[in-house]
């Protein structure tokens, strides 16, 4: 158990600012995505295993709570992808870029890129929830 404590203290105590946050976010978004992915594979497999129950699962996904989770999931997918590209780029083409200033700068660019993709997607998903779950915008 001591290794658990050491690793967690390292995760939280290290004060590397942007580069450190990018590392933590990469792990969190990756774990979040794979957790959903495992559930998602099983729920889609219901179309063959138990098609009568598929509609109930979709009802759950259409709920407001899951809709908010979906918006979070889309953030995870976009951030994890762009940050992965950032890491691969430095590794393969600019190994000299592994220094604090460049890491801070590129992490900010990663976040901006994520927001550029995520905010419009969020607009449409939020609109869908408001139309179908709250009867707004003529829903």
């Amino acid at each position, binding site marked *: 158990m001591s*290794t*658990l404590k050491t*690793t967690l203290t390292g995760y939280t105590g290290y004060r590397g600012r942007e580069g450190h946050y990018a590392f933590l976010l990469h*792990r969190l978004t*990756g*774990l979040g*995505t*794979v957790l959903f*992915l*495992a559930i998602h*594979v*099983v729920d*889609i*497999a*219901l*179309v*063959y*295993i138990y*098609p009568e129950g*598929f*509609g109930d699962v*979709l009802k759950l*996904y*259409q709920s407001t709570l*899951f*809709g908010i989770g*979906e918006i979070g*999931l*889309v953030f995870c*997918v*976009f951030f994890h*992808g762009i940050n*992965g*590209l950032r890491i*691969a780029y430095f590794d393969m083409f600019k190994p000299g870029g592994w220094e604090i200033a460049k890491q801070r700068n590129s992490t900010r660019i990663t976040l901006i890129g994520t927001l550029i993709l995520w905010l419009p*997607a969020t607009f*449409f*998903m939020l609109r*869908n929830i408001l*139309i*179908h779950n709250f009867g707004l915008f003529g829903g």
Partner: protein
Amino acid sequence: MAATTETVRRVKIRPNYDHVAWKWMRYSALLLIPLVWFHVILQDVIVGVHAMDLNYVAERWANIGWRIYDAALLGFAMAHGINGVRQVANDFIKGERARVVVSWLLFIFWLVITGIGAVALVAGVRQNFPLN
């Protein structure tokens, strides 16, 4: 500065398991970015979960191209994700035996989930005939 001679000796290191796993993470990632992003933008943003039902999946999977697309998603994303979990787990687990046990458990989990997905992908939507 003292004169030194420098000799470069090239050594070929045989890639071990983790080396191959690391390469897998990177190459599958480059493929997953277009695959997953397009899938997410299409299904979550453009179509939306409110427009989906059993028929939607049946119509989608009537096209072999989409089945191949989904098979690629299942194969690459699930393996990338489970190996990622293994890497995170190795950060927390230091014992050699415990690492082997966790790796095997994750492998079995990956096999079960991928198997379930593959069965559904091949068999398709189970519908009662006649269709209405």
